[in-house]
C-alpha cells in the first residue's frame, strides 16, 4: 500500500529518532564536557585581550648613594603602578650599567649624579641622565612617560614649596608659619601624587568594537557558536547510517524522497542544540557574563541560529558521508571561522579584513543572530550587517541543501535509468 508524503515523513522521523537516541546519551555527556572546555577557552581568550608584555628592565645608578637619596628613590620606584610597567634594578656605577645595556640586559639606564638631592632641595638647577637603548620599540614611550612623570612631580613639588616660601617671606609671616608650611605641604602633595593613581579615576568600559556587547559577552557568543557547530560531530549514527549505499537504495525503493529523508537529519540536532543553548545561556547568566533579559524576539533569533547550524552541519554531513572527512571538515572550518571572528586572538591583534571576512563565513550569520539576541549590534554595527548576514545565511543554507538533495537523488536517478 502506498504511503502518502506525511506518513513517509513520520516514518523517517521515527527512524531518525531511533538513530538519534543511540547517540543521545554520549552526546549529552560529550556536549557537557565540550561546553566546559569551551568556557575555559573563551574565558582565557577574553582575559588575554589586554597588553601582555614584560615590564621594561631599567638600571638605576644613584651616584649620591646617601640615606636620603635611597629613601626617596625607593619611594618613587617601588610604587606598585611604576613597578608594574618598569622593573628597576640598581647598579653601582654608570659604566657597569651602560656596559650591561650594551649587552642587552637593560632597556635604559637612569643616572642620578652625586649631589643631585642637595641641589634639588636648595633649588639649584641639576639634571639626571636617561640613556635609552636604540633597540627599544614600544617600550620607549613607557620610559619617556615615567621620566616625564618624575620630572613633573619634582617640578610641582619644588615650585610649590619655593613659591610658598617666597610668598611667606614677602607677606612678612613669622618663621613658625614657614616651618609649619614646610612640614605639611610636601607631605600632602606627595601623598596626593602617589594616591591619585587609584583615587582620582572612575573607570568605565565601552562595548567591544562595533558589536554593542562587552568583551566577555562577545567571546561567550563566539564560543557558543563554535560549540553548536562542534556538536555536529556527536551524531554519526544519525548522519551516516542511512547514507550507506544499501540502506539508501532500500529507502528509495520504498518511495522515500529527499524531502522525506532530510528533515529528520535537521530536526533532532536542532532540538538538541536548542536545549544545549538554553542551558549554556542560563549558566552564563548565572555566572554574570550575560545580563540581558530574553524576550520573544531574542528567543526566535536563538532558535534561528540553532536551526541554521543544524541545517548546515546536518546537510553537509549527509552530502559528504560517502566521501568521508566531514567531521574533520566541520572541526577545521569551525576553528578557522572562530579565529577569523576574533574568538581566539583578540580583534585588535588581527587585520580588520579578517573580522570583516568573518561576516561572510558560515560562522558569521550564526554569530550575528546570537549577538542580536543578547542585545548586541543594535546601533553600533554598520547598518548593512543584518542584510549581509541574512543573505549569507540563505546562501550557505542553499549551498548545503542542494548537494545533500543531489546526493540522495543522484543514485536514484541513475538506478531509474538502468531500470528503464
Amino acid at each position, binding site marked *: 500500500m502506498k504511503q502518502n508524503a506525511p506518513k513517509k515523513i513520520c516514518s523517517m522521523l521515527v527512524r531518525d529518532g531511533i538513530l538519534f537516541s543511540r547517540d543521545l546519551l554520549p552526546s549529552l555527556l560529550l556536549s557537557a564536557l*565540550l561546553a566546559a572546555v569551551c568556557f575555559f577557552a573563551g574565558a582565557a581568550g577574553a582575559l588575554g585581550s589586554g597588553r601582555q608584555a614584560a615590564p621594561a628592565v631599567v638600571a638605576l645608578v644613584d651616584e649620591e648613594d646617601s640615606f636620603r637619596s635611597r629613601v626617596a628613590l625607593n619611594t618613587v620606584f617601588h610604587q606598585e603602578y611604576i613597578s608594574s610597567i618598569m622593573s628597576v634594578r640598581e647598579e653601582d656605577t654608570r659604566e657597569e650599567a651602560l656596559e650591561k645595556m650594551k649587552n642587552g640586559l637593560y632597556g635604559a639606564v637612569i643616572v642620578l649624579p652625586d649631589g643631585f638631592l642637595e641641589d634639588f632641595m636648595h633649588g639649584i638647577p641639576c639634571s639626571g641622565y636617561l640613556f635609552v637603548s636604540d633597540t627599544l620599540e614600544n617600550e620607549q614611550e613607557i620610559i619617556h612617560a615615567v621620566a616625564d612623570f618624575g620630572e613633573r612631580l619634582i617640578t610641582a613639588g619644588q*615650585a610649590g614649596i619655593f613659591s610658598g616660601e617666597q610668598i611667606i617671606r614677602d607677606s612678612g609671616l613669622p618663621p613658625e608659619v614657614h616651618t609649619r608650611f614646610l612640614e605639611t605641604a610636601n607631605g600632602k602633595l606627595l601623598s596626593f601624587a602617589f594616591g591619585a593613581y587609584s583615587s582620582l579615576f572612575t573607570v568605565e568600559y565601552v562595548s567591544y568594537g562595533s558589536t554593542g556587547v562587552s568583551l566577555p559577552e562577545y567571546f561567550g557568543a563566539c564560543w557558543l557558536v563554535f560549540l553548536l557547530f562542534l556538536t555536529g560531530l556527536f551524531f554519526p549514527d544519525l548522519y551516516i547510517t542511512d547514507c550507506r549505499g544499501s540502506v539508501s537504495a532500500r529507502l528509495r525503493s520504498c518511495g522515500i524522497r529527499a524531502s522525506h529523508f532530510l528533515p529528520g537529519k535537521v530536526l533532532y540536532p536542532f532540538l538538541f542544540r536548542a536545549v544545549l543553548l538554553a542551558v549554556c545561556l542560563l549558566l552564563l547568566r548565572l555566572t554574570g557574563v550575560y545580563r540581558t533579559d530574553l524576550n520573544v524576539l531574542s528567543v526566535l533569533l536563538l532558535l534561528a541560529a540553532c536551526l541554521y547550524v543544524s541545517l548546515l552541519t546536518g546537510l553537509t554531513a549527509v552530502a559528504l558521508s560517502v566521501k568521508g572527512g566531514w567531521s574533520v571538515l566541520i572541526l577545521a572550518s569551525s576553528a578557522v571561522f572562530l579565529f577569523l571572528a576574533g574568538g581566539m586572538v583578540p580583534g585588535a591583534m588581527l587585520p580588520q579584513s579578517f573580522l570583516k571576512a568573518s561576516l561572510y563565513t558560515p560562522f558569521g550569520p550564526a554569530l550575528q543572530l546570537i549577538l542580536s539576541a543578547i542585545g548586541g549590534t543594535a546601533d553600533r554595527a554598520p547598518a548593512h550587517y543584518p542584510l549581509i548576514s541574512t543573505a549569507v545565511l540563505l546562501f550557505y543554507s542553499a549551498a548545503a541543501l542542494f548537494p545533500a538533495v543531489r546526493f540522495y537523488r543522484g543514485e536514484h536517478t541513475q538506478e531509474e535509468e538502468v531500470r528503464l
Partner: protein
Amino acid sequence: MTFHVKRVLRDGSFLLILLLLLLIPFFAEKAGHDVKTPPYGFFCGFEGEDASLLEQELIRSGFTAYSSEAELRAAVRDRTADCGIVFPDNFDILLRTGRTDGAVSLILSPESLFPELARIQTVSVITYLYAPYVSAEEIRSAAGEICPSAAVPEPESIRNAYYEMTGAGSVFRLEILSADGFYQAEQIRSHNLFKGTAGILILLSLWIGCCRPCAFHARLMAGRLGRKKAFLHILLPETAVRFLMILMTAAACCMVSEETSMILPVILYSLITVMSGTVLAAFLPDAVLLVLTVFLMILTLGICPVFADLAPSIPAISTLRYGLLPYLLWIL
C-alpha cells in the same frame, strides 16, 4: 620505504594538514606581537586658566584633545584612542578644594593596551596643577593657627609665583640620550601563542594526520598479512615517514618564527605525541580519537597559558594542565 613515501604524498588530507602547520609562524609573527598603542584621548569639560594649562600639558604628553565626550567614547570604542580621560565641567572647583576622588572618568575599551601610562601622565599633570592650591591652603592653615591676625596671602599670588617659577624652567631635568644596546623586550604574548599553536597543530597533525590513517591502514592489512607483518611493514614505516615530514615542517616553522630555542622541545614533544597517538589509534575507534583530539585542543586553549593564565584564579588548573600533552612545550 619509497612505496610509503609515495603513498603519503598521494594523501591530499595529509598534505592539507602539513599546510595547517604553516599557521604556526603566522601566529608568532603576525598575531603575536604587541601592536603599537593608539594615542590617548581626553575631553576637558571645564573652562578657565587651569583648563588651558591642563590641555597644554596633556597635548605635550602626546594626548589628543576631543571636542566632545561622545566623540571620545566613539574613538575608544573604534580603537583610534587606546583610552580616554574625561574631566567634568566642575573639575576646576574640585581641584581648588582638593575633592578630586573619583572626579575624572577613565574610559577604557576591553582591548585597551596600556591605560596605566595614561593614568600616570594624567596624575602628573593634575599634581602639577594642584600644587599651588596645596601651598595656598597650607599657608592659610598655618597662618590661621599660628598668627590668626596676620593677613593671609591670596591664593592667586601663590599661583602666579608658582607659574612664574615653572615658566622659568624645571630646576631638575632628566636629559634623555640614545645609546647602543641589544635589549629585546620579552614578547610574552608571541611566545605563548607560538607554544599554544605549535602544541595544538602538532597534536592534530600527528594524531589525526599520522597515527589515525596509519593505524587504519595497518588494521586493514592485518587480516591479509598478519598482525606482526602489518605492524613491521605497514604501521612503523608509514608512521615514520609521516612523522618525519611533520617534524621537519614544525622545525622549519620554529626557525621561520625565530624561536630556534623551541626546536628541541618541539622534537621531544612530537616524539611523545606520536608514541601516545600510535597506541591510542591502535585501540580506540576513529570517532573516539577525533573527539579526544578536539577536547585536548580546546582544553589546551583554556587551561594552558596560551591567551591568559587562569591558574591564579583557579589553582586546580595548575595541576590539571600537567595532564595535557601540549603543556609539555611550557615545561620542556
